[in-house]
């Protein structure tokens, strides 16, 4: 395969720009990142700076990776992270425009690498159940409806990659926050802190500069774990319930 790559290059706080690379001998079985690895190897050999991109597990679970390919977060496939995207998903001769996540709350570190620590700060503000190590009751002491456990799991599969923010025209993090809040909301263990969790996480989300949700559903469409926008609906409901009169 031959691929024409237009990739975003930017270092530190300098203004970035697209750089074009024409790559030959791309195999269909290569992953998208293996194609970039190959290109980087060539760039280094030719004394050029390699393209920086974030990645780690390459199994679609750690949430480290993510670039926008031809306008879509994590590329054209549904329910797949960038690292699990293979070149067989493209046609010979395709042009791929590759950009970092673009959002005011995610500053660019270098090329395709962005700073997503805002997500950690949101989690810090309440994304936990306050339980100390030791002294927990027997795991089967509180039975939980299978449906509830399954729903909690569906929300909990969020990998925190930030694709929802990148996909949203408002750079909203509602899907990310909604998923965490709903995971705990479905479980008896999460009830005690639920009202304050909702308020604190939403407040922190706003402070980090993430935008509002205008129900376009782009986040769900591009989420590699296919987290449902229902999480946002529930978040709005819970936020209304627990913020009024406070």
């Amino acid at each position, binding site marked *: 395969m031959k691929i024409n790559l237009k990739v975003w290059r930017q270092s530190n706080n300098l203004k970035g720009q697209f750089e074009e690379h024409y790559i030959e001998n791309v195999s269909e*079985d290569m*992953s998208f*990142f*293996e194609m970039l*690895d*190959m290109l980087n*190897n060539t760039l*280094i*050999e030719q004394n*050029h*700076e*390699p393209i920086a991109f*974030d*990645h*780690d*597990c*390459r*199994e*679609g*679970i*750690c*949430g480290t990776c993510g670039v926008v390919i031809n306008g879509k977060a994590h590329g054209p496939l549904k329910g*797949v992270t960038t690292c*699990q995207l*293979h070149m067989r998903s493209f046609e010979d001769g395709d042009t791929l425009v590759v950009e970092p996540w673009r959002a005011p709350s995610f500053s660019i*570190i270098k090329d395709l*690498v962005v700073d997503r*620590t805002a*997500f*950690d700060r949101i*989690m*810090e*503000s309440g*994304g*936990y*159940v*306050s*339980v100390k*190590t*030791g002294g*927990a009751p*027997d*795991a*089967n002491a509180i*039975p*939980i*409806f*299978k449906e509830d*456990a*399954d729903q*909690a*799991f569906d929300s*909990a*599969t969020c990998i*925190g990659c930030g694709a929802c923010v990148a996909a949203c025209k408002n750079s909203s993090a509602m899907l990310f926050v909604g998923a965490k809040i709903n*995971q705990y909301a*479905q*479980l008896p*263990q*999460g009830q005690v802190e639920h009202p304050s969790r909702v308020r604190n996480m939403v407040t922190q989300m706003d402070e980090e500069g993430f935008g509002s949700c205008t129900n376009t559903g782009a986040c769900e469409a591009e989420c590699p774990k296919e987290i449902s926008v229902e999480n946002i609906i529930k978040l709005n409901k819970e936020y209304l319930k627990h913020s009024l009169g406070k």
Partner: protein
Amino acid sequence: MQKDQLKIDYGYNNIEFNQFIEQHPVIPKGTLQLKSRGSLYYWYYALSVNVPNRVVYLCKAYIGKKNSLSSFELALLTLKNKYKKSNKKTILEDKVPDVPLDKKWSEHKFNMKLVNPANKRKYTVIVVGTGLAGASAAASMAELGYNVLAFSYHESPRRAHSIAAQGGINAAKNYQNDGDSTYRLFYDTIKGGDYRAREANVYRLAELSGNIIDQCVAQGVPFAREYGGHLDNRSFGGAQVSRTFYARGQTGQQLLLGAYSALIRQMNLKNVQFFPRHDMIDLVTIDGAAKGIITRNLLTGEIKSFPAHAVILATGGYGNVFYLSTNAMASNVTASWRAHKKGAFFANPCYTQIHPTCIPVSSDHQSKLTLMSESLRNDGRVWVPKKKNDTRLPSQISENERDYYLERLYPSFGNLVPRDVASRRAKEMCDQGYGVGETKLAVYLDFKDVIERNGSQWVSEKYGNLFDMYKQITGQNPYENPMMIYPAVHYTMGGLWVDYNLMSNMPGLHVIGEANFSDHGANRLGASALMQGLADGYFVIPYTIGNYLANQSSDLDIEHPNYAECVQENRDSIKTLLNISGTRTVDDLHKELGKIMWDNVGMSRSKKSLETALELIPKLKSNFWNNIKIPGLNNEFNPELEKAGRLIDFIELGELMALDALNREESCGGHFREEHQTEENEAKRDDDNYAYVAAWEYTKSQHVLHKEKLKFENVKLATRSYK
């Protein structure tokens, strides 16, 4: 000359010095030097030969006498003591309490010293790595009140590779009423590890396993449940009971997010300071004890020291020494290896686990391998065609032309034999020409029967994400065709040597999770890695760290020159790396190392292959130092520079792995020596001569072997049989 005069001013006497050296032949030749730092002077001893740590700090210099001792005399005294210490024969003390097995941990917990709650915050503890073990340890110690600094090379603790564990976590809860117990989990783990683990540590692990599940459920980890609302279990290799708790195929992710939530809660309470994108590149020791670390900020290149009263390494395994493995791209041995070079012993490095169910390699461009959870072997059946070099499609091969070789060879465990056995048999089948697929390096894992029995809906609920992942990577639909699998490097049982307190031979340096060697012997059972990481982090280290710190003064000499010196050494070595500007890229040389390791120190090893490795690796090492090409600078985000530092450590480790494998003249678990096998091609142990932990000490000239004899007081050593 001015310098010599200065020395004399501070009490130096050449005749006395020469006499002293003559009287103490153990001290290598060198000179006593006076060095200034700021306005003060310090005594150092510089060896004449150029070796690492050639200049050693002795003491602060002062004029005149204090306590009737001049600083020159004090320097000589310190020098004498230093060599007295280093010449003492090292004995590995496992520190296991001498009481019955089931009393050991509770006795030990009671006997350990405690740190007064009000004093805990005066102690700084560094945790390196924030995966399952590190995050749980950092959170639990912060809850107790210690001042915790946590470091990760990731941007967030949630990215650690613990997240990729799929299948589950073992616990002896006996919720299924199928006869499970602490003792059975202990026994299965010891047997699964081919009798090369320390009994006391394994028993404690089994004892704590239940608490982990309670803790995680309380944190809101959404484990799989039955319709009655109780927790569901499944079976894993090497066990005949159902004791594995799971969250679909994403157990590691859910457990890590649980530990992460505990950690960020402590970050929010300001009990933990977290340093993202910080790579630990060295360990600082003062008088032989771990007293801090040196880090490189991966965004700015800043190299900095962080002093602490104790250091805990939770930095994972070293499977990436093989280049292709199921580890994450950044997983590395650097923290452990650099601690090893500072004096921590590396134990059983040759014990590597090759996981039987991975997606086969498809091309030279492959950057990593992907695991398909062992849980698939619950319902999938492994087979190859009975005919050699059969190129027909699997659907064209009828039932009686298939060899379900695991079921044939091991009727009682069948497809659920331990990993080492399943891997070796798959390799054997392929080596004999029964392999399938284009490369012939694969066997089938077939779900036809279970799909017929329970329907594809049922299969999808249980294994959905694994099937999707397989389809995504290979382009094949496993609901219609059997999966193709082949073994791949997955986990490393070896690691830094630790005692019962999880402290290495170096005071203050603790090692937890995959980074230590202690619980899995020569082979780890499925779903036990998560269990060990969390047991160490939540329930062991928070106690044992107190026992160590209670004996330490809360004063920390943060001005000690070792910190500044260590920073400087690391700055220099990075400069050296960047100045090589050769022609080979890091990945290029890493692939070469991987090939040497896989071919010679891989799934089966022989004297010949190991000697080949020991010949090739030093050549690769010199190739690295002469030919590596690293673009960019230190003071920027430079992934190639990070990778280069990690690669050189892998190269050195690779050499030690080969050495260790060569030394171990037996086959056990993941270490299979072709010379030592039974007639049925099973691993043949030599308990008389090799029932020990091989703990290697780093010295400049060679690695020195220390042995910890393994005592089996409760389990009878037997040949492992899964027939």
